[in-house]
């Protein structure tokens, strides 16, 4: 028997008990984030670790406090707050004052997640809203990109000229400057938000998640594919566009959030394509150099509609069970 509107299939007994539960899935996500954290620590130094730790600790703390005040069950054991905290940290510039990062955690966990009912009830990805609120609210500190000696020569020379202080590759590209080589972009020897710099490390994490069947490849492939195709349409370098900014982090770790992405495979493909289209539209036409988080947030809001549109069509209702 299958749920006729989704891909979920319920077979008859005997059933195998799978070990998958929320905590296990979330632990896998944390493991998948470790390579990116390692590259960030190499490029930015120990402060990357500190920022990640602060965000993770305060996310868990806010989750615990809110559930306590609202007299709900304690859910910090499901690791979802840790994942939100780490992903939020990955979305911040490494030098951001820590109290601002804590405000981001508050918005992500309390406002976006717990006020709407906790894990499974939030309409948007908590880390994304946390990032966007900080990005709009603290525009200065959120665009203060650190420069370290381990970065690409192209970035260092821009910093030296002081023309566009500490600009990210996307900002340099928007200003028409010399951008780092594609290899440097891929490895992550660039500046940007803390965890988004290394496409290689993020891809490694993504492959781990797909192999472990934590995420389906539909959303990342559709997202990245759309970005690549649209880059060619706009006459841009697709490899640069894929490695720059938050596309990899967004496509692999944020757009694939179970709660805020569609449940059917066609729905996921539409979701990924939508994310890619809006990302490229913002990059090419809008005043912001980067648009991944806005694109994902917009598609998060459209997710219920995508789910409704991509339900399986039922031609003949099953006997008795029809509604």
């Amino acid at each position, binding site marked *: 028997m299958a749920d006729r509107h989704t891909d979920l299939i319920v077979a008859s007994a005997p059933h195998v008990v799978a070990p998958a539960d929320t905590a296990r899935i979330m632990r896998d996500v944390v493991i998948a984030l470790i390579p990116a954290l390692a590259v960030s620590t190499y490029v930015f130094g120990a402060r990357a670790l500190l920022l990640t730790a602060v965000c993770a600790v305060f996310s868990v703390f806010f989750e615990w406090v809110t559930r306590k005040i609202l007299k709900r069950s304690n859910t910090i054991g499901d690791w979802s707050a840790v994942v939100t905290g780490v992903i939020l940290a990955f979305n911040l510039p490494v030098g951001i*004052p820590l109290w*601002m990062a804590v*405000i981001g955690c508050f918005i992500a966990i309390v*406002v976006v997640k717990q006020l709407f009912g906790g894990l499974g009830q939030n309409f948007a990805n908590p880390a994304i809203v946390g990032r966007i*609120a900080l990005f*709009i*609210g*603290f*525009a*200065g*500190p959120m665009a203060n990109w650190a420069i370290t000696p381990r970065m690409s020569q192209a970035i260092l020379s821009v910093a030296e000229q002081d023309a566009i202080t500490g600009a990210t590759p996307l900002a340099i590209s928007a200003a028409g400057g010399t951008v780092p080589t594609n290899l440097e972009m891929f490895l992550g020897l660039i500046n940007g938000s803390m965890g988004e710099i290394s496409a290689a490390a993020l891809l490694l994490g993504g492959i781990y998640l797909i192999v472990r069947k934590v995420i389906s490849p539909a959303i990342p492939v559709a997202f990245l594919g759309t970005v690549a195709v649209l880059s060619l349409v706009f006459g841009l370098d697709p490899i640069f566009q894929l490695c720059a900014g938050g596309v990899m982090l967004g496509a692999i770790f944020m757009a694939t959030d179970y709660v805020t992405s569609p449940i059917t495979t066609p729905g996921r493909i539409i979701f990924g394509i939508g994310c890619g289209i809006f990302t490229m539209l913002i990059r090419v036409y809008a005043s912001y150099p980067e648009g991944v988080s806005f694109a994902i947030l917009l598609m998060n809001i459209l997710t219920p509609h995508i789910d409704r549109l991509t339900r399986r069509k039922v031609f003949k209702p099953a006997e008795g069970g029809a509604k």
Partner: protein
Amino acid sequence: MKNNKLKILTNGIIRENPVLVLVLGTCPTLAISTQAINGLGMGISVLVVLTCSNIMISALKRIIPDTVRIPCYIVVIATFVTMVQLVLKAFVPALDKALGVYIPLIVVNCIILGRAEAFASKNSVVDSMLDGIGMGLGYMLTATVMACIRELLGNGTIFGKVITAGTITPFTIMIMAPGGFFVFGVLIAVVNKLTKGKVAEKCQNKCLGCPGAAFCSEVQKEGGEEA
């Protein structure tokens, strides 16, 4: 009797607060509550217009024909709004400029039209005046409190006086639209807590006690006839 008059006066402040409980006049409130002075200025303007129009409409309630009552109310309200705007332009031009289009828009503010329809057209002049003052005070307090919170968090000042600016980086999203909606939601939550959610419950179950009830039932009736 006296108690009743007092109740009419205080109804608008918390129990039937026009913005936070009746959820009327939300657009101007969210738009102008970026600075405490704007919130207060808008609040006083609404208070004056609401009190005067309530008195006038209540006094004219036997003369105004039922079928054209809404245009008549709007003429009365527009008269007072024009007066308020001329006063603002003459004495506080800076405030007039800051509030911009939202002063003329008081004409179609649903709080004022709503009170005219639901209260002033059915009650005595004195009661209507008290209702206007009470509802106006409720609006003024809400707009000012919202604006103070948003100005403090988003700009680090209150009424232009420096509180935290310079020591703490202000969270500028609070004086943008999302901050407005956020503070609005938090204040509604606070009022629901203070009234223990009784007001919201009453409106959901029955229309009794809801000043918009006359409006709603009429709209429903009309809709039903059309269908």
